């Protein structure tokens, strides 16, 4: 009798314990406190290059919406490779417009419904019409207006005229030029031709991403007066031969110190003084400067080589994750991120919203090309420019209006890569 009683007590205890365990496990599995147990946690895998993947943007977005951004940082080439070969390995892609020529025909991207994007009609005309302040800019190469619209949501073809579906929603873009060390060069630089000037023998560098590097080389070839390309972004085999030949001759003469492939490499080359002139990205120049080293993003008379990147959605994305991705894109265009990027020297896709989140003096310095009325600081608080300084290249209109060509994928891409390998092997 007493035994039986003991048994039942034990039994009750063990049942109790088991249910408690179960409950705890459930909470643990959800990874959350019971209060928000019901809400499914969204994590977006964001594939892109390290340049655009800022921790503070992800943190701010999570604080605003509860959606987590998980950065997957790879090189420009690898973004395309993953998009083509493993479209299920990400939920949001941040890639460049020129890469679309390789990605869109695979059908791995979904057209973005502009009806779901609040600020879609405020996206700068540079993307939709190829204009800055009503003035046409250069459209050699893969200009965004050529690849931004798709024929439909599931289309593998670009549309020449605006449609409801965009391939990528623009995020950041810029116009690139040469970066120089004014303290080591000690004279004005005004032309792309200076990159191959023997004066800088052993102190010059060029980008080792073939499709971009060859565009810089083409700018130099034109500046040297060797040849005028009908379209630098889509060369014939003969034109590729000529461009690579020029590079090989310079390399054999010892012009290049190094070639660089990623952002940090270019910063290190410049900051250490290994290189005094090289093709460079604007934020890399900013990064050199924040180390207290003089570095100029030098405007040149032949103009700029522009690039633009944007957010795309993989074709397989659906449900909550798709909604989350749209939420992120809308959030991104809403101003906070735009202002953040503008302060790094990039440009944001929707200017009005970014302007609203910037101080008037900041806007005047970054976008209007006016002298700084106060010290200009980076988003991380580093000093970028002192009071009275003017931004390299001047205003948004002066800089983006001076675009000569866009990063591109050529029809003769395979041949170009083969010739580029020849340059590296020379």
């Amino acid at each position, binding site marked *: 009798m007493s035994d039986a009683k003991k048994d039942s007590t034990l039994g009750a205890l063990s049942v109790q314990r088991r249910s408690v365990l179960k409950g705890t496990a459930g909470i643990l599995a959800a990874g959350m406190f019971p209060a928000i147990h019901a809400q499914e946690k969204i994590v977006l895998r964001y594939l892109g290059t390290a340049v655009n993947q800022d921790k503070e943007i992800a943190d701010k977005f999570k604080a605003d919406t509860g959606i987590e951004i998980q950065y997957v940082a790879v090189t420009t080439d690898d973004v395309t490779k993953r998009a083509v070969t493993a479209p299920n390995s990400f939920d949001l892609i941040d890639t460049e417009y020129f890469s679309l020529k390789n990605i869109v025909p695979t059908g791995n991207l979904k057209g973005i419904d502009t009806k779901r994007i609040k600020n879609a009609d405020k996206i700068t005309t540079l993307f939709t019409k190829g204009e800055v302040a009503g003035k046409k800019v250069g459209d050699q190469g893969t200009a965004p207006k050529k690849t931004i619209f798709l024929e439909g949501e599931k289309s593998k073809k670009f549309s020449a005229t605006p449609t409801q579906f965009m391939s990528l929603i623009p995020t950041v873009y810029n116009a690139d030029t040469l970066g120089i060390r004014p303290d080591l060069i000690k004279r004005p630089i005004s032309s792309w031709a200076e990159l191959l000037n023997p004066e800088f023998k052993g102190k010059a560098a060029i980008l080792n991403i073939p499709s971009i590097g060859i565009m810089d080389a083409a700018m130099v070839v034109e500046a040297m007066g060797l040849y005028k390309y009908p379209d630098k972004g889509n060369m014939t085999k003969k034109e590729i031969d000529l461009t690579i030949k020029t590079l090989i001759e310079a390399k054999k003469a010892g012009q290049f110190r190094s070639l660089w492939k990623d952002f940090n490499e270019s910063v290190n080359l410049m900051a250490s003084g290994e290189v005094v002139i090289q093709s460079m990205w604007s934020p890399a120049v900013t990064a050199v400067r924040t180390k207290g080293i003089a570095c100029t993003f030098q405007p040149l008379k032949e103009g700029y080589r522009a690039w633009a990147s944007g957010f795309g959605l993989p074709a397989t994305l659906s449900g909550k994750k798709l909604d989350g991705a749209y939420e992120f894109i809308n959030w991104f265009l809403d101003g906070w991120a735009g202002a953040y990027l503008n302060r790094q020297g990039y440009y944001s896709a929707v200017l009005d919203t970014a302007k609203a989140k910037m101080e008037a003096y900041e806007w005047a310095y970054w976008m209007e090309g006016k002298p700084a009325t106060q010290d200009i600081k980076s988003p991380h608080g580093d000093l970028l420019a002192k009071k009275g300084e003017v931004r390299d290249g001047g205003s948004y209109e002066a800089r983006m209006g001076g675009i000569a060509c866009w990063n591109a994928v050529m029809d003769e891409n395979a041949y170009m890569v083969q010739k580029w*390998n020849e340059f*590296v*092997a020379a």
Partner: protein
Amino acid sequence: MSAPTPSLPASGAAPGRTIAAWWQALPLTAVFVLFFLIPLALVLMVSFWDYNQYEMLPDFTFKNYVAVFEGCLSGDDMCVTFKTYLSTFKFCLLVWFLTLVIGFAVSYFLAFHVKSNGVQVVLFVLCTIPFWTSNVIRMIAWVPLLGRNGLVNSMLVGVGAVDQPVEWLLFSNFSVVLAFVHLFTTFMIVPIFNSMMRIDRSLLEAAADSGATAWQTLWNVIVPLCRTGIIIGSIFVITIVMGDFVTIGVMGGQQIASVGKIIQVQTSYLQFPLAAANAVILLALVLMIIWALTRLVDIRKEL
């Protein structure tokens, strides 16, 4: 008496041919097949495929192999592929020679000059310390040392040995070889040291008693007995250098070609079939080198 049980010699003739042995071999075989043979077969298959800008097209074509050797038979200049292999072989030979000499000397010191077992172990572990950090970090550490404004150059300029910083220290053939030697000498030390420790010390005494000089002992006794270690170390070093693209890239300022680098560029431009063809050729070459090396020594017997 003349006819023992017939089953005994049968099982004795094939030791280990029991079910248990097969089971024991299975995991490794499975891993080998799954992660080596199947991928290799796929690479071989893809190397005969066609491709366009963004996709691979199943096909059977020699196009990729032809493309690899394009211009190699005509042209006045050497073609890219030959040039690349030539530069790769050059690094291979230099690095192999240097790591061998240094590795042999270090092992010799450890094995024959250090008397105490404890010190031997400590020094040997010291040799492996470089492996506690990643390859890339060990490589990048050279940059601030050898750069134009690096430590070595500021010292040279400071002492007055040179007026201008020396340029060939970094982003040159020199820096590539230096980094390789730094990274891979251990691969020589370990097998050579291992071989040396197996040498019967009485052989050395016998050599000395027979009146051999130190050099004669080294050349006629120690080196032949270390052959296995030397060959194994050589295989390690040669296969790594043949396939490397990271070290050559970082230390050579991305300006020096290597076969691995070409394959990497091609895969990043989605030219997988072309890259596969290149990889197959590289693999064939490396296998031939290894085959030739293993002719010099029967590794199975020696181990």
